[in-house]
């Protein structure tokens, strides 16, 4: 990592250490802490060029921030707004970029309705599992060919609670809403989404393992820290290998194949680490009070988001 990126990582980590409280955030009406989100926007984690009011951060910087948000499971509109901003930039529509990107850079929640679940792209249908879909003030959608700005006046939408309370998802009914064409839809947004999510998954997996290692160093049974038992040590060593290889897969994601690889590998790695986190903690991880179940539920939810590993394996099979 370059010194600038390390500094960004440290700034985000220190912000989240001080201000992020996932339990409090998921109890708020919007499911995220608006103050934390405002501070993230101030740091400039959104991938928006300076000429559109952004910080000039690129996708690499955004992924660094997403990894940090993954570590603490902090709910935030970053993923949704990133995808909307990138889809907008890809149209090359100067007017729309100049009008909408500065607002997004300032923290206005934006989201994108796109057919990641392989449902036919439509401007008149119902989209499920839309990130921040019930909160977004800027709503973009694609019909598979072009990108449109949707007039919220004609849209009905509702929060869709899922097992993972740390990610806000909604069902959005577009039928009857007015849509303004902005420019061409870029299918490469899928790769942007998969790579961004993989970064977040790796951050969460790494933290889940850290917490597990810390616990096994302090929990004493049979007169020793349980982390001294080889049966547990080897499992955590294997998990470390998994997290580090997942990190490499996420970092390498920059085209269709590598993004799909990252999605499959990081989804499976995170799920494995979170499931082992529960087992290595034992009874305490079965409690609501302990955070292990939050990691586990996030792992399951993010595995399904933007298509399950099985879906992307099928794509890869066809591709390679």
């Amino acid at each position, binding site marked *: 990592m370059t010194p600038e990126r390390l500094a960004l990582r440290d700034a985000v980590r220190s912000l989240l250490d001080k201000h992020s409280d996932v339990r409090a955030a998921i109890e708020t009406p919007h499911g995220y802490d608006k103050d934390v989100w405002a501070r993230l926007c101030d740091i400039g984690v959104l991938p928006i060029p300076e000429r559109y009011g952004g910080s000039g951060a690129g996708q690499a910087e955004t992924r660094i921030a997403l990894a940090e948000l993954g570590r603490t499971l902090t709910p935030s509109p970053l993923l949704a707004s990133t995808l909307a901003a990138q889809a907008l930039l890809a149209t090359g529509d100067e007017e729309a970029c100049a009008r909408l990107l500065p607002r997004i850079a300032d923290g206005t929640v934006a989201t994108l309705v796109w057919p990641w679940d392989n449902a036919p792209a439509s401007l008149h249908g119902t989209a499920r*599992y839309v990130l921040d879909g019930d909160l977004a003030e800027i709503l973009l959608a694609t019909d598979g060919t072009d990108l449109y700005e949707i007039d919220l006046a004609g849209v009905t939408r509702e929060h869709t609670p*899922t*097992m993972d309370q740390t990610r806000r*998802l909604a069902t959005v009914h577009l039928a009857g809403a007015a849509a303004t064409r902005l420019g061409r839809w870029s299918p490469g947004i899928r790769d942007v989404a998969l790579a961004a999510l993989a970064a977040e998954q790796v951050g969460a997996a790494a933290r889940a393992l850290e917490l597990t290692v810390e616990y096994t160093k302090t929990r*004493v*049974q*049979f*007169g020793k820290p*349980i982390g001294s*038992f080889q*049966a*547990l040590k080897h499992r955590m060593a294997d998990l470390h290998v998994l997290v580090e290889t997942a990190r490499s897969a996420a970092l390498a994601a920059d085209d269709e194949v590598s993004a799909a690889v990252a999605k499959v590998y990081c989804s499976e790695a995170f799920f494995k680490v979170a*499931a082992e986190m*529960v*087992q290595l903690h*034992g*009874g305490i*991880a*079965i*409690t*609501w*009070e302990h955070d*292990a*179940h939050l990691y*586990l539920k996030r792992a*399951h*939810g993010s595995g*399904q*988001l933007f298509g*399950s590993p*099985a879906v992307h*394996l*099928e794509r890869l099979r066809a591709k390679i």
Partner: protein
Amino acid sequence: MDLDLDASTLEFQAEVRSWLAAHVRPLSSMDTARGFEEHRAWERLLASERLSVVSWPSSYGGRDASLLQWLVFEEEYHASGAPGRVSQNGIFLLAPTLFAHGTDEQRARILPSMARGDEVWAQAWSEPEAGSDLASLRSTAVRCDGGWLLRGQKAWSSRAAFADRAFGLFRTGPGERHRGLTYLLFDLRSEGVTVRPIDQLDGEPGFAEIFLDDVFVPDADVVGEVGDGWRVAMSTAGNERGLTLRSPGRFTAAASRLVELYRKNPDPALRDRVVDAWIGAQAYRLHTFGALAHPPSGPAASVTKVFWSELDVALHETALDLLGEVAPGWRDGWLFSLSGPIYAGTNEIQRNVIAERILGLPR
């Protein structure tokens, strides 16, 4: 292997099947106050047909059913989608201990009300610092006039939030670790008992901590000899790890549901895992039927515990992957399956038992 059932077992199977078909209803979660009472009422209904404890002697409310008939009952029970057993800790853990180590007086006093669900039992073995290392437990029972006074703290006590009574291990001395422990029964509503429910990862209080502050237990509620509690507890711990707590019926039923789920959501990428899970359930069933003459107990029960608990996780994870983000009907089962490799002695402990006591590897 010949799995054909004899005429009387077939008749029993038909009776159980039709009774369940007529009576099974969905109930609220047993880890809520309302759901707990619904499950207690279900136990009473089962008992009214002498179906709550079929393998027990008829004098205690059972049917003297053979182990084979019990397995058949369990298969029918799980296949019917019948509710979880709120009384299972008593029926499958305490009752075998009373049959082996209790007195006639204790059996006559305790078992019929357990069979009817009038008294629901919780297990009070683990403590905050004594989980896998159970022998390090520190709660004490001190001699007093006519009995014992319990003092200390128990943890991870399933059902204790709403149960009536508990069975536990307490240090009576002399000696350390496995020595000087006594197996005692106590009332969760006695003076000096504080129960603090703990919410589980599904948000419901499935287990609790129990704080004991000079809780009186009469001599009549000591099971086995004073100071012999470890042997008394361990002689039947195999029931928890082995087949009685987790009969194959539970897994064959879940495997059938999984296959049905696959038919509705076919996903070639997951086909092998569905089939593997189904094979696992069949293998466990065959293993159990094959072991009928010599049911697994002691160290052999550790083999089945590792097998069924990891099978249960695999079954549910596969279902979840088939379903995606929203997993109605499977989510609670999945979350519960995650505790399988932890309770009843973690699978790490089971593997130590297998390695040291079956394979004879050095400690």
